[in-house]
C-alpha cells in the first residue's frame, strides 16, 4: 500500500484526511427526502420522511415510519408511529430512540420499535403544540407554539422544568443548547436566535440574557466541548465565538448564495458548512483558511468527538484531523523515532541488516520506548488493516530490544484492535474510531451490541477483554424469554447456559417473562434467583405473596418480611382472612408482625391474636395499654377486656388476678371518694401501708379480708408502716395483741434500724430461740442480759463467749 500521507490534505497547519467507511447497502434512498438523526460514536441512523418536502416516491410504506439503519446502510427495523407528526428525533447513548411528537408527547423506543417509555411534556387539556425541539442524548428541550420553554435533563428520571422566556420573543430562527456539564449552573442552557437580530440565553430559574447582534442568525451550533459557538448570519458570514461571548475567534464571509443546510464541527476548532444546493461542503479553519469538497448528492453531517461522519446516498465517510501520533510516522521528509522504527521493521521483512542498526541507534538515543508506544498508538488510530499490521509489527519488533518493557500495553492494543475491526464489519456497521472507543468505554459498546441482539459477539468481546459476562447473558436470556417456544424449552435452555454462572440476576429475567405474560415461566425462573432482595419484590408484584413470604423468611431479612406483610395489609385485594391464612404457620413472620403492630397498629394486633386463637396475649396486651393512660374509666374498660380474654383462654389464674384487680380498683376509687387519700396507682401492699399510716384501720382490715392477704404479709406491712411513723407504743401493742406470725426478730431489727434500742429490747424476750436472743443482746451491748439467757440455758461456752466480748468492768458471772 502507498504511504497514507498521500491522501492527506494540509489545512491550517494540520493534516486532514477523509476515510471511506462503507459503500451504503441501501439502494433507493435519497437523503434529500429524509430527516436524518444519527447516534454518536459511529452509531445507528434514523430516517424519517421529511413532511416539508414534496414526496417523490409515492409509496404508502414510507409514510409515518421511522427507518433504522446501520452506518453501513443495513436496514434494522421500521417503526410505525401512526398518525402523529414527528418534530424531533434523537438517540440516547445506549441507542434508544427518542421521538418528540407535535402534541408534546415524547416516546422512547428500542431499536426494534418497542415502546420503552412515554413522557407527556404538557397536560393533554392544554393542547400545546411543539414549535421547535432539540433532542440530545439524555434530554429534550421543547419550545411550544404558546411560547413555553420546557426542559427535561434526564429521561431516566423525567422532571419537567420550565424556563422563563423573554416577554416579546420574535420569530425564532434557530435553537441550540449547552449541555448541563458545560454550564456554570449545572443545568442545561438554551440559546434561541430570532429574526430581530437577537440571541437569548435561557437558564433555569433566571431571567433571559439578551444579546443584540448586528445581523440575524440563521443557524447556530455549539462545539462538542461546549466551549465554542459557531453561527451563520443572514449576510452569509460564519462567526466563531466563545460560549460566554467574551472572545470572537472568527468572522468568515462565505461568499455563497443561500444558507447552509447544516453546520457541523470537525476535529476541534474547524467548522463544516453543508451548502447542499451548491453541491459544496465548505471547511473553515480558525485562521480564515478554507477547503472545498464537492458532493453531487445530498449529504448529512454527524459531529463526532474526533471528526465528522458524512453520510450520503452512496457512502459513509469520515473526515478528521489526522491524529498527531500518526503524522510524524508517515509525513514525507520528517523523521521521528517511531518513523525509524517503522522503517526498520519494514527493512527486517526485506532481510536487510539496516533494520537492526537503525533500532540500535534509536535505543542508543533512548527513544525506543517512545517509538514503540507511538507505533502502538498509531496502529489504534489507523483505519487500514494493513497499516495496523505493519505498525503492530514495528512495535513488536521494537519491544524485543527493550528490557522491562510493559508488555501488557501491546496485548491490550491487539485486543482493542480485534474488537474494533470486528464491530466495524459491514453487518454490524459500527464505525468507531479508537478515540471514540476509548471515550465511550467497553460497557457502552457491549450495551449497544446487546441492544442489537449480537449476543454472541458481545459475549466473545467480554471474554476477550475479560469483562463480566453477566449482563450479556441476562440480556440474552431476556430475549430468549420473549421468543416463542414452550416454557419448558425456554427454561431448560436458559438454565443450561446460565445455571452455572455466578451472580446472574434471574430476577430480571423472570421480570421480563412476567411482563410478557409468561407467569409460570417467571416463577420457575425466580426459583433460580439467589438474592432474596431481588426475588421477593417480584413475587409480590406477581401476586404470589405466600411464596414471597417464604423466600423472605428464608433470607432472614426482616425488611423483606415486612415488605410482604405491609404490601398485603395495604392492598385491598387481600382480605384479612387471606392474610391470616398465609402467615398462620409462619412463626417468624408473626413475631415480626406483632412487634410492628405493637408500635404502629394495636387494632390489627388484636385481630391477629384472635385469629391465631391467642386470647391470653390479648389480655396481656390490654394490660400494657392500660398503663399508658391515667383515665380511670379507660383502665376499667381495658381490665374488663383482659378479664374476658383470660376467661376465654381458660387462664384461670390471670382471670382471677384481673377480676381481683378490678375489685381493687373499685375499692380504691370508693376510698378516694370517701376519704382525702390518694391511692389509685398503688399496689395492695402500698395501699395497706397508706391506710395504716393514716390510721384507717377499718378500711385496712377490709382490704386485707377482701383480697385474703396472708396474715404474715399483713404483719410485715403494718409493722413497717408503724415503724416508719415512729409510732412505737402502737407497734408494741400490735405485737402484744396476738402472737406474731412472723416472729419477733423483725420487730427487733426494725427498731435497731431506726436506732431505738430501748424499743428493741422490749421484743427480745419474746423471741423463742435463746441463741437469737443472745445475738440481739450482744448487738445492743446488753451483756448482762445476754449472760442471763446463757445462765438460764445452762450454756457455759456461750457464757464464756459473752464474757470475753463484754468490757472488763462489767461483772459477768463466771459460772452458771
Amino acid at each position: 500500500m502507498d504511504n497514507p500521507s498521500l491522501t492527506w490534505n494540509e489545512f491550517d497547519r494540520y493534516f486532514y484526511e477523509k476515510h471511506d467507511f462503507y459503500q451504503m447497502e441501501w439502494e433507493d434512498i435519497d437523503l434529500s427526502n429524509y430527516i436524518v438523526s444519527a447516534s454518536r460514536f459511529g452509531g445507528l441512523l434514523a430516517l424519517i420522511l421529511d413532511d416539508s418536502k414534496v414526496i417523490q416516491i409515492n409509496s404508502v410504506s414510507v409514510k409515518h415510519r421511522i427507518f433504522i439503519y446501520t452506518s453501513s446502510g443495513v436496514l434494522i427495523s421500521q417503526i410505525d408511529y401512526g398518525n402523529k407528526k414527528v418534530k424531533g428525533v434523537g438517540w440516547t447513548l445506549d441507542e434508544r430512540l427518542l421521538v418528540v411528537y407535535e402534541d408534546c408527547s415524547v416516546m422512547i423506543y428500542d431499536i426494534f420499535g418497542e415502546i420503552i417509555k412515554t413522557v407527556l411534556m404538557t397536560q393533554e387539556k392544554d393542547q400545546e403544540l411543539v414549535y421547535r425541539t432539540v433532542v440530545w442524548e439524555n434530554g429534550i428541550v421543547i419550545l411550544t407554539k404558546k411560547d413555553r420553554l420546557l426542559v427535561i435533563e434526564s429521561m431516566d428520571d423525567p422532571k419537567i422544568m420550565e424556563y422563563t422566556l423573554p416577554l416579546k420573543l420574535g420569530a425564532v430562527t434557530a435553537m441550540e443548547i449547552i449541555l448541563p456539564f458545560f454550564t456554570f449552573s449545572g443545568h442545561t442552557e438554551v440559546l434561541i436566535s430570532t429574526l430581530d437580530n437577537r440571541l437569548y440565553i435561557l437558564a433555569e430559574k433566571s431571567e433571559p440574557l439578551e444579546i443584540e447582534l448586528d445581523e440575524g442568525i440563521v443557524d447556530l451550533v455549539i462545539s462538542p466541548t461546549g466551549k465554542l459557538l459557531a453561527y451563520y448570519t443572514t449576510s452569509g458570514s460564519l462567526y466563531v465565538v466563545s460560549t460566554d461571548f467574551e472572545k470572537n475567534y472568527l468572522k468568515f464571509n462565505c461568499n455563497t448564495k443561500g444558507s447552509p443546510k447544516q453546520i457541523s464541527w470537525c476535529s476541534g476548532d474547524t467548522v463544516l458548512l453543508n451548502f447542499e444546493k451548491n453541491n459544496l461542503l465548505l471547511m473553515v479553519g480558525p485562521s480564515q483558511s478554507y477547503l472545498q469538497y464537492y458532493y453531487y448528492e445530498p449529504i448529512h453531517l454527524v459531529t463526532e468527538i474526533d471528526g465528522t461522519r458524512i453520510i450520503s446516498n452512496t457512502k459513509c465517510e469520515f473526515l478528521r484531523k489526522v491524529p498527531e501520533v500518526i503524522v510524524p510516522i508517515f509525513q514525507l521528509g520528517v523523521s521521528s523515532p517511531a518513523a525509524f522504527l517503522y522503517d526498520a521493521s519494514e527493512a527486517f521483512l526485506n532481510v536487510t541488516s539496516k533494520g537492526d542498526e537503525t533500532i540500535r541507534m534509536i535505543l542508543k538515543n533512548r527513544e525506543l520506548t517512545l517509538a514503540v508506544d507511538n507505533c502502538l498508538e498509531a496502529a489504534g488510530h489507523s483505519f487500514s488493516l494493513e497499516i495496523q499490521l505493519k505498525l503492530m509489527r514495528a512495535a513488536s519488533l521494537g519491544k524485543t530490544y527493550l528490557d522491562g518493557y510493559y508488555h501488557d500495553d501491546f496485548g491490550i492494543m491487539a485486543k482493542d484492535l480485534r474488537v474494533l475491526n470486528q464491530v466495524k464489519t459491514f453487518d454490524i456497521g459500527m464505525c468507531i474510531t479508537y478515540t471514540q472507543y476509548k471515550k465511550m468505554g467497553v460497557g457502552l459498546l457491549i450495551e449497544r451490541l446487546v441492544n442489537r441482539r449480537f449476543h454472541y459477539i458481545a459475549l466473545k468481546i467480554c471474554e476477550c477483554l475479560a469483562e463480566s459476562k453477566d449482563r450479556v447473558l441476562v440480556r440474552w436470556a431476556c430475549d430468549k424469554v420473549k421468543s416463542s417456544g414452550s416454557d419448558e424449552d425456554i427454561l431448560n435452555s436458559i438454565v443450561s447456559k446460565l445455571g452455572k454462572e455466578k451472580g446472574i440476576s434471574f430476577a430480571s429475567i423472570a421480570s421480563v417473562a412476567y411482563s410478557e405474560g409468561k407467569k409460570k415461566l417467571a416463577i420457575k425462573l425466580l426459583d433460580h434467583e439467589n438474592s432474596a432482595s431481588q426475588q421477593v419484590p417480584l413475587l409480590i408484584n406477581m401476586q404470589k405473596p405466600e411464596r414471597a413470604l417464604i423466600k423472605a423468611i428464608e433470607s432472614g431479612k426482616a425488611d423483606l418480611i415486612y415488605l410482604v406483610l405491609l404490601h398485603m395489609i395495604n392492598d385491598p385485594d387481600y382480605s384479612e382472612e387471606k392474610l391470616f391464612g398465609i402467615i398462620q404457620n409462619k412463626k417468624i413472620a408473626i413475631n415480626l408482625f406483632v412487634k410492628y403492630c405493637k408500635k404502629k397498629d394495636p387494632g390489627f394486633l388484636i385481630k391477629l391474636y384472635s385469629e391465631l386463637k391467642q386470647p391470653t396475649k390479648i389480655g396481656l396486651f390490654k394490660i400494657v395499654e392500660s398503663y399508658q393512660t391515667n383515665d380511670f374509666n379507660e383502665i376499667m374498660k381495658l381490665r374488663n377486656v383482659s378479664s374476658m380474654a383470660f376467661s376465654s383462654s381458660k387462664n384461670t389464674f390471670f382471670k382471677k388476678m384481673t377480676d381481683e384487680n378490678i375489685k381493687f380498683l373499685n375499692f380504691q376509687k370508693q376510698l378516694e371518694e370517701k376519704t382525702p387519700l390518694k391511692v389509685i396507682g398503688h399496689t395492695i401492699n402500698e395501699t395497706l401501708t397508706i391506710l395504716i399510716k393514716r390510721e384507717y384501720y377499718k378500711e385496712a382490715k377490709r382490704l386485707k379480708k377482701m383480697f385474703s392477704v396472708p396474715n404474715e404479709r399483713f404483719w410485715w406491712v403494718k409493722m413497717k408502716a408503724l415503724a416508719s411513723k415512729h409510732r412505737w407504743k402502737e407497734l408494741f401493742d400490735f405485737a402484744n395483741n396476738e402472737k406474731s406470725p412472723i416472729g419477733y426478730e423483725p420487730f427487733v431489727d426494725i427498731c435497731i434500724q431506726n436506732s431505738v434500742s430501748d424499743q428493741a429490747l422490749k421484743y427480745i424476750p419474746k423471741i423463742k430461740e435463746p441463741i437469737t436472743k443472745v445475738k440481739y443482746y450482744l448487738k445492743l451491748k446488753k451483756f448482762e442480759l445476754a449472760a442471763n439467757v446463757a445462765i438460764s440455758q445452762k450454756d457455759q461456752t456461750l457464757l464464756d463467749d459473752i464474757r470475753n466480748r463484754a468490757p472488763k468492768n462489767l461483772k459477768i458471772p463466771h459460772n452458771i
Partner: protein
Amino acid sequence: MTEVIVNLEDSRLLHNIQVLREQCLNEFLDIIPETVGSGSMALILDPDLTGPLGLVVEPKVLKQCPISTITELHDQPFESKDNKFLFFVYPRLELMAIIAKYIFSQEKVIPNCEYTVVFVPRKTMMCERELEKLGVLGNVTLEEFHMDLIPLDEDVLTMSVKGAFRQIIDQDTSNLIDVAKSILKFEAAFGQFNEIDWIGSNSEIVADILQRTKNFSSKNNDQLFPSQVERLIIFDRKVDLLSPIVTQLTYEGLIDEIYGIENGIVQLDPQVLGHRGNKKERKPLNSNDILYAMIRDMNMGKVGEFFKKTAKQIELGYENRNIVKNLSELKTFVKKLPSLQAEHHSLDTYISIYEDIVKLTGGGSDLKKRIECELGILGDGRQFYDYLKTQIWKEENLNTVLRLLCIQSLSSGGLKNKHFDFFRKEIIHTYGFNHVNTLANLEKLGMFKKKEGNKFDQIRKNLKLFDDNFLQTNDISLVHSGYAPISIRLIQCLFEKKRGWESIDDIIKNQIGTHYGKVDLPKSKEKKINSNINQSNNTKKKLCLVFFIGGVTYAEISALRILGQKENSNVEFIIATTNILNGNKLIQSTFEIKK
C-alpha cells in the same frame, strides 16, 4: 486519665484482633466530614449507642473531629446554633419520630440545615418508611455505620445490643441477620471456619443464613492462608436460661453482680476505694492489667489467698523482714513503695474492691444467704419456699426474688400448682398488677412455671453440673462455687466427647429440649495443608469462636477461659456475643411495663 479502650497490640490469642475495631473506627471517620465549611456540626447519639461507641472511638479522636456539639437523642424540643446534624441511631422505629421532631423544631430556628441519619449497623426499610411518613425523608441523607462486633477485650467481642435478650423473649429474629453478617465479617478478616456447630433455634436461623451464603458465594473455597480461627459454635441463650441467673462467684462476676460492668468499665463509689468525694470513679477492667487478668476468673474464695501470696512475693522481693499478716497490712505496705506506685495502685484498687465484696457477701448478709440457697437448690435439689415467702413479704428487691424463684423452678421442672399460684399472687399484690406481664414472660420462657416432670436431676447427673470439690479440681464449676453452667458444659462436651453433641444427643434433645446441627461446609484443600502444619506445630492450641445469641455472663466467659487454659485442652476460645448479660439484666428485660 486511664486508657478506657483496651489495648490490643499484643493480643495473645488472636493476632490482629484490633482490625475489627480499626475497621469500625475508619468507617466512623469516613462518615464524619473532615471539614464542615460554613457553620458547625452537631453529633446526636442514640443513648443506647453512647457506651458501645466509646469502645471504638476514643474521646481524643472525637475531639479532632470538626464537631461542636455532642448530645444524646431525647424526646424534647431542641434548639441549636449548629446547621449540620449527624444522628447516630439504632434502627428503632420510635426514634424516627424524635428525629423528625428535632428537624421540625430546628428548621424554625435555622432553615435548610443539613441532616444525616446514620443507622447502626444497617438501615432498615421500616425506618426509612417511617421517616417518609413523618415527612422528613427529603430533608435527610441516610447512611450506615456497620459497627457490629467490637472487641471488649483480647478474647471478647460484643455487638453491644442492649435489647438482645428482650429479642429472645419476643422471638424477634430481625437482628439475627446482623449476627450472621458479623460472622461473615469475622471470617473475612481471620479466614473461613472449618467447622460450624449450632445449638438452639435462633442459632439455627443464623446457621441457615450462613449456609445459604456459603452455597451461593464463590465455590472456590481454597484459601491461601490457613484460618486463624478454625471453629465456630453458635449458642442460643434460650438453650440455657438457668446459668445467667445464678449468682456469679468469680471476682469479675461479683463485680458485675454488685456494681455492674458496662462496656468494660465499672463505676465505683469513691468510698469503696477508700477515697473521698461523691463522684463515681470509672475503672476499666480488662486484660491490659496483668494483675486483673490473673484474678478475674478466680473463684472469690481464692482471691484473698492470691492477694496474700502476691503480697508475700512482693515482700520477699523487696524486703525480707516484715511478714504481711493480713490485708490491711498489705495495703499499708503497698503504699510504702512509691517507685512502683502505678502498679501498686491497681493492686490497691483490686484489694479495696475485694474487701468491699467480702463485706457484702460476709456471714449474715443477704447476698450470702442467697448464695447458700442457690447452691442448696442446685446442688441438693432443696426447696427454700419459706425463705422466698419472707423475702417477698419483706418486699425485697423483685429482681433477686425472681432470680431465686426461677432457679427453684428451673431446677425442679416447675412449681406445684399451689406454690406457683401462691407466689404469683404474692408478687402481684406486693410489687403491682403490672407484673402479670412479667410473670407471663417468665412462663413463656419456661423459667417460672407450673410443674410438669423434672428432668433437671438427670441433666445435673449427666452433665455433672455440680462439683463440691471445685477448688481442687479447677473445674469450670468454680465460677459459681460448685455449679457448672450448662452452656459451657455443652461446649465442653463438643470437645471432650468422641462424637461431640451426638454422643449426648438424648440429653440435648429430650432433657434440655433443644436441637443442634452443623453447617455443611465444602471440604477444602486447605484443610489438608493445615493438618500438616498442625502435626509439625502441635504445641499451639487451636482457636474456636463461640457466639452467644442473647447474651453471655462474665462467669461463662471465665468458664471458657478456664476450659481453654487447662493443660490437656487443645483449644482456646474467643467469645463473641450480642451483649453481656447478668441475672439482673435478664430479669429486668422481662419487665414489660415500667411504672
